[in-house]
């Protein structure tokens, strides 16, 4: 029933549909990367600084790696960090928001002050410090995004839980004899899902951009190729000076398109779950 309703929604919501298509294409690209890349991204397969040619569609870098292959492999890193980083944020955010909203009182006060503290830390600066301290690896980047990204979600979840908690239908359930666990299971959790899904998708955008930013600053995982890292090497190895646009523009475009894809999907889902936004 839900699936059919969603398909019907997709039909008239071009935004959601285009976001979904972008993400599906990128995901397939990431999954079948080994089969569609012309070369091993870590192998020297041509002369250094080669311009685009039939052998190397996007040329080669300073060592002779094929840039197109690196670009395709880069989608794996971006999607992995994006989805897992956002998952971490949403998980911590939901747990803290839920506990604060349901428990109330002193617990709420303590958790919300903690949230405020994390919220006022300058995000990108602290992520840089954290990754530099923990060491540049994919898992450390995901961890850092989680540590700093949850507060806004926690606030959102808390206020939503509080509004659900005081709603008349929860009071009605209480008057019928429902206890706390029943109300959580049948009213609070189902009420949260339409809030969490779009928020998750939109958080992926932040997460992907953070990874790209870190990699561009040289804090990316050196064992994995990523779009940010392509830009980092392009910059320090003089791609800009030499006017090698084929090394600079494609990764930038990929980051933009991926971010856009999740943004479109997230906005569309928000509309889907919250009919008040529907036109």
């Amino acid at each position, binding site marked *: 029933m839900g699936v059919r309703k969603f398909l019907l929604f997709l039909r008239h919501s071009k935004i959601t549909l285009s976001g979904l298509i972008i993400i599906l294409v990128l995901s397939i690209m990431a999954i079948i990367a080994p089969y569609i890349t012309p070369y091993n991204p870590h192998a020297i397969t041509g002369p250094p600084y080669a311009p685009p040619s039939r052998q190397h569609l996007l040329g080669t870098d300073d060592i002779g790696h094929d840039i197109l292959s690196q670009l395709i492999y880069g989608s794996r890193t971006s999607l992995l960090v994006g989805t897992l980083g956002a998952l971490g944020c949403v998980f911590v955010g939901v747990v803290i928001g839920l506990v604060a909203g349901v428990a109330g009182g002193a617990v709420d006060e303590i958790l919300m002050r903690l949230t405020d503290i994390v919220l006022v830390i300058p995000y990108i600066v602290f992520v840089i410090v954290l990754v530099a301290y923990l060491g540049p690896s994919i898992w450390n980047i995901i961890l850092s995004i989680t540590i700093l990204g949850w507060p806004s979600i926690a606030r959102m979840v808390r206020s939503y839980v509080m509004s659900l908690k005081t709603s008349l*239908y929860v009071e*009605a*359930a209480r*008057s*019928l004899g*429902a206890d706390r666990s*029943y109300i959580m299971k049948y009213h609070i959790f*189902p*009420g949260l899902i339409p809030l969490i899904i779009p928020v998750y998708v939109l958080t992926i955008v932040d997460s992907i951009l953070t990874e790209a930013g870190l990699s561009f600053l040289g804090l990316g995982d050196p064992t994995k190729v990523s779009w940010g890292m392509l830009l980092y090497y392009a910059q320090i190895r003089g791609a800009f000076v030499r006017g090698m646009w084929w090394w600079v523009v494609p990764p930038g475009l990929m980051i933009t398109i991926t971010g856009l894809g999740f943004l479109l999907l997230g906005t569309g889902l928000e509309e889907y779950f919250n009919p008040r936004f529907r036109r």
Partner: protein
Amino acid sequence: MNSKELINYMKSTFGEPMVEVVDLKKYFPVKGVFRTIGYVRAVDGVSFIVPKGKTLGLVGESGCGKTTTGRLILRLIEPTSGHVYFDGKDIFKLKGKKLLEFRRKAQMVFQDPYMSLDPRMTVFDIIMEPIRAHKIKVEDPQKFVVNLLYEVGLNETHLYRYPHEFSGGQRQRIAVARVLALEPEFIVLDEPTSALDVSVQAQILNMLKDLQAKRGLTYLFISHDLGVVRYMSDYIAVMYLGKIVEMGPAEEVFEKPLHPYTKMLFASMPVPDPFEAKKKPKVEVIGEPPSPINPPPGCRFHPRCQYAMDICRKKEPPLVMAEKGHFVACWLYAKK
């Protein structure tokens, strides 16, 4: 007359009580920046009974404490002081299984059928809610729910629809079906029709009356709509600023109101027939209810009362039996 005597008088004239309310008070604190700066005396010492198998109508203006009283009687909120006895048991002392048992027998239908049903649940889930909450085993849940739907004038085609697909009246029927699932003995009806169109109101009221006759239910009917209360109630209690000012059999109170406030309230009731309306004595409605945070001293109604005497400004009038089974809190009828 103290509240014990009062309750005994009521028992002897109204009959066996389902619910007994004794000196019930609920003060809501008003929070300032640093400390509590006062209390809203929403319910300020009310005593009454709801006779078994009958309907007690609780009337009064907005903000007089009607709904708070209803919520207290079902223990949705805890009182500041006082007692409510349900079947002879003090409900504020109930715990665990006993409390759950009480929650099964005493139910509430809320004013706003748009807010009291979870928009994400189907009708089936809504009506099964009390069954699941009480962990009761039902042989055939679908059949069980359909039977309840029939009882409130809906049918099996409505089973898997969502609340937003229904009109206000239908939603209120769903809310009633949900309450009936537990086979309650006592239902608080908190303005069940005030959010509905007039034409739908009558249907719901008749349904409620039929259900009462069929299942032997006891109702506490809360409303500000005097016409509706008169139609529904066997007995009436009139509230003003957290106090009961008059109580008695419905017809008697309507035909022969004693308290000046009740007279004023009834005078404000529109009469459908314009020729009848001309005959009706005119009682001017003066002022509006004062704030329940700082109620006036003495009788709370004295600033608006055309009969106000010296004593009314100083001493609060007790609720006394002015005639057999007709109680009133006014110095015009009480011994000074």
